[in-house]
């Protein structure tokens, strides 16, 4: 069986409640005890005063002077529970309340208390407490004084009803328990508030870790409480190590792919120099290997997660890509225009953005007859980029094929151009989309619509 609950809050609540209950129980007991002693002390003083009065009836020689034993209320009232009795070697005196009967005394009442620290010089009679019941069976509390005389010890016993002590105690118990209960409620409330405040940084940490995992945040940024800092530091180091490992792994994939490309290029060149049926088959194999490499490189890039939150200005990216297209397609005379405000920015990894838009622009340049138009604008929180050409356009089926909708990239057979599916993957990875519209624009050809989260600049 588990003693501690599984949650931190549960553990704190349990231990705190346990401690509070113990403390309150102890407080209740000790307050009750102190109160009881206080009330009992009052009774004792009253009884002792009566003993003082009665003791005057005992002479030093042991004789009794009944007239000196003044019987004051309530000791003179029968049935009041108050009574005294003077027992001397020469006789007895008793209060009126007792009538003719002796005060019922428990066995061994006259035994003097063992000598000890209670012996005080100002207490020559060594007054001691006595508890018992009176003739009516009610609880009484009494005091016994031992008065030494020439003829032996005389004893003065004074008793009062125990109820006089119990009544105020009972009366005090209600308010006492009530105030302790209020205190308990207050402590529990304070505990809950404390838990809320105390555990808040933990919840914040959890949220941040989730954000890091989702790629919305790179590092955990928590400056307090200081108790969490070692954990935050460890987590950040772990994130960094992870990033480095990921970068290394990606680097290895890229190196492997690039490393394979050069020998493949050599092989392709060697094969191109020969002609034979077998060589044609080898060329086909080389081409397939090349496609595989291109595909997996593309996948490795598309799988990158990390600097998603970077805001990139769109216009310089488009300018650079357009200039690149002009050079790459220098055999084609394409007029192009970019209609983008200089402050439009998107949230995307810069390299992914190059890749995403590069593939689409390459496609536009490839298929355009003479014109390519690039425009972009904010669309709510997103940015919509439109790339239109005046090429022959595509049918719906061709568009689905081009985007490999509903298929995984590595299921695709041959042919060239993994470009657009990679663009689609990249746009979706960054929380956007890519659509192709046939005859969407006034230019007549295909219009590519890229939607990406807007950035701030």
């Amino acid at each position, binding site marked *: 069986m588990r003693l501690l609950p599984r949650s931190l809050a549960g553990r704190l609540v349990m231990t705190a409640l346990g401690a509070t209950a113990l403390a309150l129980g102890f407080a209740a007991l000790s307050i009750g005890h102190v109160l009881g002693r206080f009330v009992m002390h009052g009774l004792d003083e009253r009884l002792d005063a009566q003993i003082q009065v009665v003791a005057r009836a005992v002479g030093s020689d042991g004789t009794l002077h009944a007239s000196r034993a003044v019987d004051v209320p309530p000791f003179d009232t029968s049935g009041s529970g108050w009574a005294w009795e003077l027992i001397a070697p020469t006789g007895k005196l008793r209060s009126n309340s007792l009538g003719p009967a002796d005060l019922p005394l428990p066995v061994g009442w006259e035994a003097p208390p063992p000598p000890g620290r209670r012996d005080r010089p100002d207490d020559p009679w060594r007054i001691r407490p006595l508890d018992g019941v009176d003739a009516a069976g009610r609880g009484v509390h009494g005091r016994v004084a031992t008065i030494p005389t020439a003829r032996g010890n005389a004893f003065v016993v004074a008793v009062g009803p125990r109820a006089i002590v119990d009544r105020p105690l009972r009366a005090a118990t209600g308010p006492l328990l009530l105030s302790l209960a209020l205190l308990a409620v207050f402590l529990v409330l304070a505990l809950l508030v404390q838990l809320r405040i105390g555990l808040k940084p933990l919840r914040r940490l959890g949220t941040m870790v989730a954000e890091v995992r989702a790629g919305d945040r790179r590092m955990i940024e928590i400056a307090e409480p200081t108790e969490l800092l070692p954990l935050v530091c460890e987590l950040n180091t772990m994130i960094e190590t992870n990033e480095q490992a990921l970068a290394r792994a990606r680097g290895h994939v890229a190196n492997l*792919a690039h490393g394979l*490309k050069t020998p493949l*290029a050599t092989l392709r*060149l060697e094969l191109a120099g020969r002609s034979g049926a077998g060589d044609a088959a080898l060329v086909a194999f080389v081409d397939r290997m090349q496609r595989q490499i291109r595909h997996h*490189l593309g996948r490795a890039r598309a799988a990158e997660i990390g600097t998603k939150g970077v805001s990139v200005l769109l216009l310089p990216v488009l300018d650079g890509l357009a200039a690149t297209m002009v*050079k790459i397609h220098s*055999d084609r005379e394409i007029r192009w225009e970019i209609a983008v405000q200089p402050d439009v920015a998107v949230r995307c990894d810069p*390299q992914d953005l190059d890749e995403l*838009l*590069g593939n689409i622009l390459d496609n536009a340049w490839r298929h355009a007859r003479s014109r390519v138009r690039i425009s972009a604008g904010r669309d709510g929180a997103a940015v919509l980029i439109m790339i239109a050409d005046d090429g022959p356009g595509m049918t719906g089926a061709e568009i689905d094929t081009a985007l490999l909708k509903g298929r995984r990239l590595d299921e695709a057979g041959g042919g060239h151009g993994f470009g657009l599916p990679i663009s689609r993957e990249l746009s979706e990875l960054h929380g956007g989309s890519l659509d192709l519209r046939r005859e969407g624009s006034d230019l007549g050809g295909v219009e590519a619509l890229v939607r990406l989260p807007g950035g701030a600049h």
Partner: protein
Amino acid sequence: MRVLLVEDDAALADSIARALRAEHFAVDIAANGEDAAHLGETEAFDVAVLDLGLPRVDGVTVLSGWRLAGRQLPVLILTARDGWSDKVQGFKAGADDYLVKPFRIEELVMRLRALVRRAAGHAASVIRCGPLSFDAQTGQFELDGLPLRVTAFEWRVLSCLALRKGIVVERLDLLERVYEGEADPDSNSLEVIIGRLRRKIGAERIETVRGLGYRLVEA
């Protein structure tokens, strides 16, 4: 036409060089960035093929260095890096074309010829000079509409003169663009080649400008 081939993979470099020489190009190979930077800045080339991932100094740095030194030779980047970011970076550094490995050698040859032609200021692919025509895209010479058979050296000299038709090409410049770096040309060999070409296309087509060099003329 002389090509500077910068490629650190020896097998690929040999393979490309062999293919280019078969197309009559003179080919010098640099296997690292330092050599490439030095060669490109000190010797005359018609075009350079530049790998990006190079030992010592990377390709983009080499290219930027050339452009900073005022070298205008056309440069084709031939690399395994096929990302658009790499391409944009390459063109920003001053590249004129970009080809991704693996590639077809025919495409490389075609692009190199186009680069050289455009660098010489010819928009059309066919250059005519009287009855002689040079298709800078296929590398074929024709005389009076019939294919003209030339050796590799003859092709290098004649293509160089054709691309600069009507302009005097200095003798030293011609020598540099005909012979590969390691060759030790006999000072008379250029005259021998010119003599053979004159016999093939007519002596009056190649004019000797004394103390300067040679010029391909219309008539």
